[in-house]
């Protein structure tokens, strides 16, 4: 039987999850409106949600506004209490703890605080509010997510000075994407530094994919928390099985390209074999080096039974496409080859068989 222990959640992990669950109970809820550029309308959507919640009886205050306040936003927040920011623009944390509303509306999550403030960054203020049991609705643009800044810079050539770590967003209870056609943002007098139409479309795609990744993580957490065995994922997950003699280069490149086009995940696995000769070991090492270069997630599997090890791993990892080399098939024999057995057993993912090329 294959050994699976190394992939089960370890007790520390489970404990952290339980603790996180407990913390969530007493913590305020965080909702983030994510846009791809200025003018996409996230602030308006955020304040409008605050207005509707107030009408439904929640105790709502505005804790941060971008000035100057646009007329349409002014109309929306007309009846909502404002806890004024300091002259330098910082959120008045003490006043908010004192006032203790159910819900704070905070525009411009990525802003920095003036020197001498309790926290250097506004997102840290939000974290403190949440810890005090105050819920927050806030808004930010994709260029302000720290882990997305390289990608944004590749598109626009510019990098925003302030950012929020992705980790903080991962803890948000809800993220909502505000999508709109790029031309709509360029109508009328566009602000200085506005990206062009093509750049805006690329940013738009980036924001949608970033949100999809966050949603994927939430789905996984939800399934884990509820002990639901996941079936086929929404995201393509490709597993390339490498052996010393497989045509790994073609499989890895194809896997990389597929994962990239589908914005999916690329995993590479090999089943450990006890006695590899020097040539095979060198080949395997070379294949693994390529896999690492391509940014694949590499796993070594253990088990007497090659087919069972691969199958278990693929199911656990919610694989949607399994790539295998033709070499595993071997000559016709009385015993069915590993490839045949994998094809027969794999009813939840596609199996793609790669040709063996001479000289490999």
């Amino acid at each position, binding site marked *: 039987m294959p050994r699976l222990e190394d992939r089960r959640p370890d007790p520390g992990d489970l404990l952290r999850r339980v603790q996180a669950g407990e913390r969530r109970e007493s913590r305020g809820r965080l909702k983030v409106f994510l846009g791809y550029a200025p003018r996409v309308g996230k602030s308006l959507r955020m304040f409008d949600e605050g207005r509707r919640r107030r009408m439904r009886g929640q105790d709502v205050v505005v804790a941060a506004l971008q000035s100057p306040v646009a007329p349409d936003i002014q109309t929306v927040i007309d009846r909502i209490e404002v806890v004024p920011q300091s002259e330098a623009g910082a959120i008045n944390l003490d006043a908010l703890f004192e006032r203790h509303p159910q819900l704070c509306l905070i525009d411009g999550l990525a802003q920095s605080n003036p020197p001498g403030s309790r926290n250097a960054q506004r997102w840290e203020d939000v974290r403190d509010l949440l810890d005090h049991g105050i819920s927050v609705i806030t808004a930010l643009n994709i260029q302000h997510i720290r882990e997305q800044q390289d990608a944004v810079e590749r598109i626009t050539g510019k990098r925003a000075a302030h950012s929020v770590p992705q980790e903080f967003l991962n803890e948000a209870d809800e993220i909502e994407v505000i999508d709109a056609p790029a031309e709509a943002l360029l109508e009328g007098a566009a602000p200085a530094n506005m990206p062009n139409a093509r750049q805006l479309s690329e940013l*738009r795609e980036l924001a*949608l994919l970033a949100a999809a990744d966050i949603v994927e993580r939430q789905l996984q957490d939800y399934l884990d928390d509820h002990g639901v065995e996941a079936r086929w994922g929404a995201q393509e997950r490709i597993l390339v099985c490498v052996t010393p003699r497989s045509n790994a280069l073609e499989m890895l490149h194809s896997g990389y390209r597929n994962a990239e086009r589908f914005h999916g995940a690329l995993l590479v696995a090999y089943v450990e074999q006890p006695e590899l000769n020097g040539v095979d070991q060198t080949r395997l090492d070379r294949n693994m080096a390529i896999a690492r270069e391509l940014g694949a997630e590499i796993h070594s599997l253990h088990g007497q039974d090659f087919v069972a090890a691969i199958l278990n791993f693929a199911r656990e990892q919610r694989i949607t496409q399994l790539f295998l080399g033709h070499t595993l098939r071997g000559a016709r024999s009385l015993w069915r080859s590993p490839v045949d057995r994998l094809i027969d057993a794999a009813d939840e993912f596609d199996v793609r068989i790669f040709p063996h090329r001479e000289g490999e």
Partner: protein
Amino acid sequence: MKGTLKIYLGYAAGVGKTYRMLEEAQALRQKGCDVVIGYFEPHGRAETIAKTEGLEIVPRRKCSYANTSFDEMDTEAVLRRKPQVAVVDEFAHTNVPGCERAKRWQDVDALREAGISVLTTLNVQHLESLNDQVYDFTGVRVRETVPDWVVDAADEVVFVDLTPRALRNRLERGVVYAQEKAQKAMENFFTETNLTALREIAMRHAAHELEEKLEPADADQPQGGRHERILVCLTGRPSSAMLIRRARRVADYLQGECVALHVACGPVDESVERHMSFARNLRVESHVVSGSDISSAIAGFARQERITQIFMGRSAPLPWWKRFEETLVQQVVRQAHDMQITIVAERRR
């Protein structure tokens, strides 16, 4: 000039697609554009109905079928009215039999041919190529579908988001459906996992549509690698529909092409005909060759057509007295050993 098509894409009823579409219609009207409502499904939602205020509505047409009266868009009346922009809700709708066109997307196309631009709404689960994936997740087989190329041809796809939590709150408050129906919906289709999964699919699809528009497919020099040509092996088995959808989707994502082949030993039977016409619907070129040696016919055709990847369904297991023989999949793997072969899972729940 052909009218433009803008699709408001959502992941479930109640996320606010129609509302966003009507907001846009109002904004256009403010700018002096001649906008009418060709078809609008109010679902009794007060906030949405309020958004139609001031917009001209072309009355619907009563169609009777099986002694029941149905309301359909009066496409001919909209054509006669000839506005600049028409608002047409529920792009995936199937008209009752007896209407001029079977599908609403075909009505929309007729409007666009007449130079009328259209705003419409669609949920991601109605995309043909996602049919199996959605079934796999939700257990619901969506009946009304739109071929992917129709959506790909839209000038603009706008994703309309709402978090599953907010959507379920709206259901609970009776905003989306009447209370009793809402309760049932929450237990079945609108579960937290279903909604989350559908939402993720919709986000990825909206991103894919953007990418399609950013990188027009270049037949000679595809980005990063060779040009994929996918061959789907069609049979009369029901799983062939799933095979076509999956291959179409992979080809779209890899910006490759997709062709279908059926190897006939005798006359082509009706179920194969149906799959062939389904393939043509999805713009998959379909071929029939005759021959009794199926695997060599497939391998030969693939070589001749410079196929890079063959898509097949799994062969049924052989009975014990044939256990030393090869299944069709095994034969093709042996004969087309210089090509990639993908055995597509049926993903039965």
